[in-house]
Structures are given as C-alpha cells and as structure tokens.
C-alpha cells in the first residue's frame, strides 16, 4: 500500500512539473506595463499621424482583426515586430521636434526591454516561428518597402497604437486568464 501511494505521489509530482514546464512553451509573456508606452504614444499620436497622408495604405495590415494570429505564433510575431521597429522604423525616422523625439526615444527603450524578455524565451526554445508567423512578418516588411522611407517611417510610427493594442490583446488575455 505504501509503495503504491509513493508511486502515485511521484506520478502526480511529475505531471505537475511537466505541466509547469510545458506551459511556458506555448506562451512567452511580456510581463511589463504597457501603459507607459501607450501614454507616451498618445501624446505624440496627433503630431505624427497628421503627417501621414497616405491613408489608403496600411503597413501593419496583418495585425488587423480579420487576420488573427494564432496563439502559438504570438511569441514569434511579437519578437519579429519588435525587431522591425527597433531595427528599421526608429532608425529611419528623422524627428525635428525634440519633445516628440523624447517620447519616441522612451518608446524605443521600452521596445528594447521587451526584446530582451522575449530573447530569454527564445533561448529556452519556447518561441518557435511557424511558417504563418514568418509569412505575416514578411508582408509587413513588404508594405514598408513599398513606400518611401520617410513616409514609411512616419506611417509606421503612426501605427504604433495598432501594434500596442495587439500586444495588449494577445499577451494580456493569457496572463489575465
């Protein structure tokens, strides 16, 4: 009887450990407060979006409601988009206004922090990219390339609210759940 009990306890412990271990495989969380970033963006949103004259073109088209990213791809897509903004948008944009530049810089720093968080997931091999995630990222890059650099940069900055809302939705649901 005792042996059976011990074996049962061991099985249970193993199951628990496995579940704990497998859980992070599916999701990789950005556990930071996005509110600061959103507030920063709200202050410069009007100034930046005014400069965008190409209303019928969207760069972050794949993040729309109609094309929902699968939960398994969220980590990969988040990581790719963060890289997109840090490596391309923030570097391409030339901001004359210092106040706006300050806000943009704070947003960029936050993105760098998020990237570091996701890199840990990647090291643990919990952030694998599927083909669909890779395709979605490619489309965004293509949209960016269709426009002139300055316009594309401005447009991408103007669409930051879309990106932040998407992060909230995908990373908050699971954390809140």
């Amino acid at each position, binding site marked *: 009887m005792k042996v059976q009990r011990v074996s049962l306890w061991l099985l249970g412990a193993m199951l628990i450990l496995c579940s704990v271990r497998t859980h992070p495989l599916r999701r990789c969380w950005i556990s930071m407060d996005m509110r600061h970033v959103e*507030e920063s963006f709200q202050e410069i949103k009007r100034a930046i979006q005014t400069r965008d004259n190409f209303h019928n073109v*969207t760069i*972050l*088209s794949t993040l*729309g409601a109609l094309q929902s990213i699968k939960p398994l791809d969220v980590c990969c897509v988040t990581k790719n988009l963060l890289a997109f903004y840090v490596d391309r948008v923030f570097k391409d944009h030339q901001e004359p206004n210092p106040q706006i530049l300050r806000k943009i810089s704070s947003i960029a720093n936050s993105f760098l922090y998020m990237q570091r968080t996701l890199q840990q997931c990647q090291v643990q091999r919990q952030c694998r990219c599927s083909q669909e995630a890779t395709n979605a990222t490619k489309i965004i890059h293509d949209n960016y390339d269709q426009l002139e650099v300055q316009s594309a940069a401005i447009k991408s900055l103007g*669409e930051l609210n879309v990106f932040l809302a998407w992060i909230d939705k995908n990373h908050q649901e699971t954390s*809140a759940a």
Partner: protein
Amino acid sequence: MLSRLVVPLTAILSLCHGFSEHGTELPSPPSVWFEAEFFQHILHWTPIPNQSKSTYYEVALLEYGREPWRDIPSCRRALESSCDLTTATLDLYHNNGYRAKVRAVDGSRHSNWTSTQSRFSVDEVTLTVESVKLEMQEGSILGTIQPPRPQMAPEGNTYEKIFRHFRQYEIAIRKVPGNLTFIIKKVRHENFSLPASGEVGKFCVMVKPSVISRTNKGTWSEEQCIVLSKQYFTVTNLSIFTSVLLLCGALAYCLALQLYLRHRRKLPSVLVFKKPSPIIPVSQLPYPEMQDTIHSLIEEAFPKVSPELRNSDLHGSTDSGFGSAKPSLQTEELQFLLPAPQPQACGALGKGVPTELQDSCSNGSHSSTDSGICLQVLNYGPGPGPTWEQQVEKASQGQDDSGIGLVHNSEGQPGDAQSGSTLGPVSLPRPEVLEEEDPAEVAFPGYLKQTRCTGEKAAAAGCLEEEAHLTGDLGPQFRTYPDAEADWPPPALAKGYVKQDPPGVTVAPSGSPTGQWNQLPEEGPFLDLTSCGDLGTSDWSFIHDLAPLDCVAASGGLLGSFDSDMVALPLISSLYSSE
C-alpha cells in the same frame, strides 16, 4: 506717370482679388475632430466664417487601410456643425481606425477638405457609465454600476466584451450636508459596497470608469443619492435577538424542571413522620407499678419499633391494617396513644385512663399524621366504657385512619357491644366478633387493642413487641386481652395495633403474668420482651428480625418468653383466621 498707374493698378488688383476670392473655394472648416463615447461617434467641425444660410458641409469617411473615401449623405444638412457617424464606424473597436474629412459647400462653391488630425481609433473613445444604483443593506451601501448599453451597438459588442480586462471605476462619495469631503475609492467590479455603519444622513455617489491598460479617458456619472437611517431590525440584530430568546427559554425550562424535581422530592405531608424517640423497653409497659415508666417507654419505643418492624416481614403490606399484611410504614413516626399514666390499681386505672387516654389520644392524634387510629385503651375493669368509646370515636374521627375501629375493650361483652356500636368507622362486626369469640378475645381482625392490665400484661408485652403496624399506621399495637378477669392488674397501655394471633392461642391471664411482668422491668430493655419466640436478642435492632408471621406463630413462644399466659397472641391469630 507711375503715380497715375498706381490707382488703376490697385483697382485692378483689388478687382482681381475679389475675383479670385469669388472664384476660390469656400473656406474650409478650421478643424474637424471626433467626440466619441461607447458606440456614439460624433464628428464635429467648426463652421466656416461668413457662412450663408445655404452653406452645408460634406463629410467623407475613410477606413484606415481601405481605399475609397465614403461620402456620408446623412450629414449633408445646412448649418450643422456635427454629425453622428456611429453607423458608419461600427468597426471602430476592431480595426485600425478611421479618418474623416469635411468641406463646406455653398451652391456651386465648395471648400477644401479638412480632415481629422489623427486617426480615429478606440483610444479616442471616452468611457462613461450609464447609471448607478444604490441600496442600503445592513449598515453598508451596495452599489451596482450599469455600463453603457447603446442601441447602435451590434450583437456581441458589449462594454464588458470590448474592454474585457482591467476595468476600473472610481467612486466619489460625499455627505450632502457637509458638501465638502469627497471620498474616492477605486473598485475593479461593477458591484461595490461602501461601509456606512452608524452613519445617518444623505449620501451622494459619483462614478468614473476607466480601463487600466488603456489611455481612454472617463467622465463622471450623474450623482446618485441615498438617505441612510438607523436600522434596528437588521438581520443580524434579529438573529441575535432570537438566539438570546431561545437560550433564555431553555434556561428557564431547565430551572423549572429542577425546581419541580426538588419539590417533588418532598414527601407528602401524610407520610411525614416525627423522628422516633429512643426505644423504651417493653417490659415496663404492662406493670401497674411501672405504669409511668411503661408509658414513657412505650412512647419512646414505638416510634423506633415501627420502622424496624416495617423492615421486617412481621407485618404485611399496605393494607388497612387488618390481617397479616405487612405494615408499610412510610415514615418513621409512630403514632400511638399511650394510656394515660394509670394508677396502680386497675380500677383506678380504668377511671383515670379514659381521661388520660383521651388526652394522650387526642394529643397523639394531633401530633401524628398517620392513618392509624388512635386507640384508647380502656380498662376492662370498672371503667367508663362509654367514655372510652367516645374517646375512641373522637380519636378515630380525628384521624384519617383506614377505618378500622379499634378493639376496645370495655367491660365485658356488653361493653364491647356498645363500644363496637359506637365506633362508627369500624367496619368490622365487632360486636359479633366479640360475641363469637371467647370473651377473652376481644379483638377484631386486624387490631387488638391492648387494654388490660395485669392479665394482659404479658399479652400486652407481647403485643407491643409484635407491633403489628399495619399500613400507614404507626400506632402502637394493641391487644385485647380477654376480659375474663375483671380484676386484672393494671392494664397494659400501650396503645397500638397488635397483630392478632389465631384463636388457638390464648393467654390465661393470671397472676403469673403479673409475676412475669414484674420481671420485665428487671430485664431491662423492652427489646428483651419483644424477642419473639426464639428470636431472642436483647436489642431493639432485633426487632426487624422479627417475622410477623413467625412472631405471630411464635406467639406462643413469645408469650412463653414473657409469660405463657399471654393471651393476645392467640387472639390475634384467631382473628386472622376468622377473617
């Protein structure tokens, strides 16, 4: 020359200016913006200066990322500076935003487009609360917040679904008379409670919604007021009250039960007897010389005897005292009537007896509460029979005895007959018995009155000793002595009931008993005398060893112990048999 050209040039220029103004478009509205609440998206613009009555504005809407601008014809109204675009912007909460542009049109002229500076997205929706309900419950205010429920919202687009997480509400409370203090509390749910125990007055509450993860702004709701009053009949108060009542009821019930049980423990007054006094040897009883001592002895002895006899099997159960029923002595109090201190002579005794007897009987009757009959021994000698009878009657009347009359004794049969007749409660056919039986056998079944002196002394002693106490009656045993001799020695006095022996046993009163009696006092304690038959111990305690039947049966032996002339025993047995 040039000065002359200036004037026409200026005129031409002005004309051209006016011309161009006339030809140019109307001025575009200076600014365009959205003012939106939950599914209530209204586009505002500032009107153009110098607008005429026919000036109206055109609105075009573009969904960010989709190509064509959509014209909104419903907004084409004159002199309007706002337009509701909710129906055209239902996807606001799911897409990337909208852009809108407005231009003024007046006749054939129209202005340039003026578009919104920023994309109209979810961030620009101002959060509101539809209503707040307040109610009072047990010393606290319970509030229910109702989120907006617009009619335009399509199916499934509720406030809670769109802003699924991190909804927050700020609550501001103020007391109306004070009009000063605002207490702000943040709650994360639509239901909240505000503790207000002990507060009385009017309180007003406002609510401002927000979403923690978003930058949406919120507006304060309308003030909702509630009046608090002292509540005494709350659920908790009532429950406490009922529980206290139940406890008190249970305590009262227990106390009452305890009291009732204690009270019940008290014996009925009828069964309460006086404490017996120490036993006095019987030997002193029948002797005329020892009358005084005998009396005292009897008085003292009987109370003690009776309980012991009770314990013994000498007498039967709780019957009225007749027959061999054992006496059921409920109490220890003996009631017996001692003959009054009798004179040495029987005759004298007879005379004196009645009065004394009367007194003692009456006294005894007053003091005792048994059901016995106060029997008064009467001398068989020249005593006033009727007197005795009267006394007996009185005694019997005074007590709630079992109804048996005592055997009396009077002088011989005629007296007996009389006495028998006078004794009302006596149920036994005393006279008949008396007539039937040997004159010496005076007793009727049940009780034998000890009347005689001398001749009966022995019998009396035996009777005393036997102490046939019948039910409830602690009276001393009486034996009737055969009144064969008129000149009996001073009668024995113990009044009481003595179980009657079968008639076979007769005691022959003679002088021998006298001698015997004389010996009795010498023997000491009464107990010796009462040693029934072979029972002989010289202790009172021995008494309860006496088996009544044995005693009766051994009456002969008993008599023999004192004197073989004891008459009562056989009489008793005869009475029993007759019955």
